[in-house]
């Protein structure tokens, strides 16, 4: 028998809900993200004091922060399940797909929230930081974040299975997300320089197709990570 689509959505939501309430209990990722963001931001603020830096450095820095934050926060969703052996409970309760999308959703939303906070703080704190086209700035941030979260999710699943932690995570992720990062940095830079909202149209195209590609691949591949 095949799972009805509405059922599928309900279950994805259920997985998402589980992760969210678990996170709210333990505040694991939240803590890591919060601590990291605050510290790095203040370091940057401190070390930039007077120095006026070119626009694309701002864009670059912003994304370096987001990337690092993702690395220190998002990896856990799968790892904890594996560490505590609760993954078996999941496997006895549903199929791979809703689990993957549940966690993907969780990561995306978490990272979106983080990006929002980070960007606001960043723009408040750094005077040199100005945006020409808000629309395209937001579009870039959104697409970039979603892409980053998608990549981190599948890599997180890999890492969890490998019972390997910490350093291996960025090592595996970086080559994967690099094209994304470069593109989104470019897009952000454009948004900070060019008032036209569609100035970075090509970049959006690249970003969107990247997101589509990686999620399609993850969807196909996750099945194999999932079973045994």
């Amino acid at each position, binding site marked *: 028998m095949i799972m009805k689509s509405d*059922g599928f959505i309900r*279950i994805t939501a259920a997985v998402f809900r589980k992760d969210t*309430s678990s996170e709210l209990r333990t505040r694991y990722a939240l803590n890591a993200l919060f601590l990291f963001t605050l510290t790095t931001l203040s370091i940057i603020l401190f070390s930039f004091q007077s120095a006026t830096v070119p626009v694309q450095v701002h864009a670059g820095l912003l994304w370096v922060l987001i990337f690092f934050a993702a690395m220190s926060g998002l990896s856990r969703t799968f790892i904890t399940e594996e560490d505590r052996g609760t993954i*078996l409970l999941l496997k*006895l309760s549903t199929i791979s797909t809703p689990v993957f999308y549940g966690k993907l959703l969780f990561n995306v939303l978490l990272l979106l929230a983080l990006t929002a906070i980070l960007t606001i703080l960043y723009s408040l704190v750094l005077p040199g930081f100005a945006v020409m086209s808000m629309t395209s700035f937001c579009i870039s941030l959104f697409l970039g974040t979603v892409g980053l979260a998608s990549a981190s999710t599948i890599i997180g699943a890999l890492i969890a299975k490998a019972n390997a932690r910490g350093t291996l995570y960025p090592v595996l992720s970086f080559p994967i997300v690099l094209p994304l990062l470069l593109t989104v940095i470019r897009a952000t830079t454009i948004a900070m320089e060019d008032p036209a909202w569609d100035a970075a149209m090509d970049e959006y195209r690249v970003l969107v197709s990247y997101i589509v590609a990686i999620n399609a691949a993850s969807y196909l591949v996750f099945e194999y990570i999932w079973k*045994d």
Partner: protein
Amino acid sequence: MTDIRITVAGLRKDFNRRPVFSDISFDLSGGRTLAISGRNGSGKSTLLKIIASLLSPSAGAVSLTIDGVEIHRRWTFRHVGMVAPYLHLYEEFTALENLTLIDRIRGSNHTASEYEEMLAMVSLERRRHDVVRTFSSGMKQRLKYALAWMDRPGLLLLDEPRTNLDPEGITTMKTLFKEQRGNGIVIVATNEEDDAVMCDERISLSGVPPPGAPGTGRKGGR
């Protein structure tokens, strides 16, 4: 009672090219119960995992049919309830939350009263709002039973069913066992003779001593 039937043919499992058991075959239909015995490390849990399709066998096949239709490995879990030492609960959640959240993920929505009932069955109702981290070993084991039993699975897999349970808990376990007989299959992996004798059939996996050594399975007598 749904007409459920499980057929295991020529099952073999190797870990890193080291055989644990080989050529396991049996065939159970609704109402039958099977005991898997054998020394530590002989492959009981591994066999259960394969049956629940949590692991894939190195050779051979497990086929589960319900009312004549064969269920794909992918969907086995829907008909499986499992209690095992290596199955862990969400420690940061309360007993009730564990029930509800897992139930939602399973896609089946029971009513609040049904949850209560479940908790009452394993007599945890008074602790429903305590987080599982603070539970005693036996209380955790009881909660696992509630989870496994909630959907009245056609196939109940019990790995070392009496671990951590007190006499009262064991009685609960036994009543479950009997009830399940009424509507499906029970497979028990155990070291305790008392559990084994409850079952109609029996397979003994005789890992060569010492238990450490790779076990080579042998089909038990019918």
